[in-house]
């Protein structure tokens, strides 16, 4: 694990990413390709999801194959409240965070007693349960999904109908979570999580009740995933069970690995690459997954540190030489 230098390759790259994303709307507007704002709003939403997964996966070593469930819970919180005419964004997002956190608490409480393949399977199983639950409840659309009439309302000054406004809201959340995440993983709490990933047995012997810290991390990650889901609901104005399909959890995992696990900013790259590849490839052929699949296999086999890993090696080398 690279040390937390204040000024490092990672810091520079992170700064660059934030600047590029901040300038994207005016830049694309000037270039006449303003539709990119929508695409990158979506990318940033998944970047938030991937970032939240990175906290428990990259730093905590908890391989959760059910993270998409929290996106779904967050999205449906917005959708269901909107269904009943509640458009207040603070309320919707509040419920999204609370609901995801509570579900994460329950899932984590049961799953974190296990490890390895069992943990992977049980998180997958819980995500499946929630997926099937959402399919079966016809009141909220069931398999067909639920339309949302209005965006979340955050005071009358913020109009999420405007693509740029939505973009900057998502951007703000991403930057906030990135900065909060960095503080979290460097804090005492973060050290416990990282120590437990490194050597759980020693952590217990040294005096840490590892389970409760892992559970807290799991809840935090779940709540962040819920926020991503709530933002997604705002972008699509539509929620459906397909958000929570297990293949979606796999895709978020892919983003974390593609970008670089255990770096927080890596998952942002991962989200960009994955979604750009998906869009680009599906323009070329409807069968883009036939290419995406092998790419993932190759990345896992030969480029395990992901894009960020490659980038930061280059950066470190050029600074040395």
């Amino acid at each position, binding site marked *: 694990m690279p040390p937390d230098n204040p000024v490092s390759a990672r810091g520079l790259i992170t700064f660059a990413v934030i600047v590029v994303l901040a300038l994207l709307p005016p830049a694309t507007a000037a270039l006449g390709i303003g539709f990119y704002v929508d695409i990158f709003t979506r990318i940033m939403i998944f970047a938030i999801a991937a970032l939240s997964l990175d906290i428990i996966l990259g730093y905590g070593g908890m391989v959760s194959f059910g993270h998409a469930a929290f996106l779904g819970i967050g999205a449906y919180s917005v959708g269901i409240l909107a269904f009943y005419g509640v458009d207040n964004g603070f309320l919707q997002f509040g419920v999204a965070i609370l609901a995801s956190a509570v579900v994460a608490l329950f899932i984590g409480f*049961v799953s974190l007693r296990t490890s390895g393949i*069992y943990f*992977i399977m049980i998180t997958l199983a*819980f995500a*499946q349960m929630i997926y099937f639950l959402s399919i079966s409840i016809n009141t909220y659309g069931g398999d067909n999904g639920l339309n949302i009439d209005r965006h979340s309302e955050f005071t009358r000054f913020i109009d999420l109908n405007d693509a740029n406004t939505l973009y900057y809201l998502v951007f703000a959340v991403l930057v906030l979570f990135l900065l909060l995440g960095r503080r979290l993983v460097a804090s005492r709490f973060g050290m416990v999580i990282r120590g437990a990933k490194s050597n759980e047995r020693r952590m217990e012997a040294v005096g840490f009740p590892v389970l409760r810290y892992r559970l807290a991390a799991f809840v935090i990650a779940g709540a962040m995933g819920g926020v991503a889901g709530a933002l997604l609901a705002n972008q699509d104005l539509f929620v459906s069970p397909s958000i929570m399909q297990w*293949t979606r959890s796999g895709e978020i995992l*892919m983003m974390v690995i593609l970008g670089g696990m255990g770096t927080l900013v890596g998952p942002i790259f991962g989200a960009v690459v994955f979604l750009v590849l998906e869009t680009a490839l599906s323009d070329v052929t409807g069968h883009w997954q036939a290419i995406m699949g092998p790419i993932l296999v190759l990345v*896992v*086999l030969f480029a395990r540190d992901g894009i960020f890993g490659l980038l930061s090696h280059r950066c470190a080398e050029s600074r040395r030489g």
Partner: protein
Amino acid sequence: MDPLLVLAQALNGIQFGVMLFLMAAGLTLVFGIMNLINLAHGSFYMVGAYAAAATFQTTGSFLAASIAGIGAGAAVGLAVEIAVFRRLYARDHLDQVLATFGLILFFNEMVRIIWGSTALYATVPAFLAGQVEILPGAPYPAYRLAIIAVGLAVAALLYLLVGKTRLGMLIRAGAADRVMLGALGVNVKILYTLVFGLGAALAALAGLMAGPIFTVEAGMGENVLILAFVVIVIGGIGSIRGAFVAALLVGFVDTMGRAFLRPLLATVMTNAAADNAGPALASMLIYLMMAAVLFFRPRGLFPPRTR
């Protein structure tokens, strides 16, 4: 509730159970011996189903279709083992999960490229198309009975193979202490390939038998795969006996749940509520069962004794 209906559904549950067993057996062997999580196991099931259905459509021969199905599944399995899995044995589970997830995407898309996106039609062979009277007044599809018979036969054969043959002894030794096996001079590489091929063949067999009952389409493997994982987790990873017991349990509970939960709930709540709650609860049932088992027995019902 009609007792004959209950009997029919119970048999359906057993039939589903033996199919899950065929999937789970390969999965648990591969995981138990090679410590490899293979999410693409469902793809062998799918390949078996497609190869058999396509062959049957062109030749009309069930025998040819069966051979093609199992052959294709085993062939794909071996190819993947040599090309990809040999590099994955030494990696951690996360890497295996991700890499095999990539394989799933690839295989699903390949069958769409070759056979299109619409489902392939697989028919029950003529000699099994009828019904059998298992009890007076209780007809049951012959094909499903045949599946049960084949499944039980395979289970018996596996039991003999693992318990009574030299290969089986190597398999059990490998499951208990893989490093030691290599140190004893056993060609572990070939053993791995054999075991992997066997697992893939079993999955393909399950797939080709499932074709006429379930739809043959891309992604068909994943639903069964997840259930198969639930089975091996409940049964105890690495244990064939555990896989057998758990598979029958899961198949039975899932089928009976889907058939009878909604009517049962309708007796205590409104029809509308039961319409929502019934299917929801039914699909969640096995996962709840798995969670319960893991809570009390974190390593499954029959965990093999390993170092």
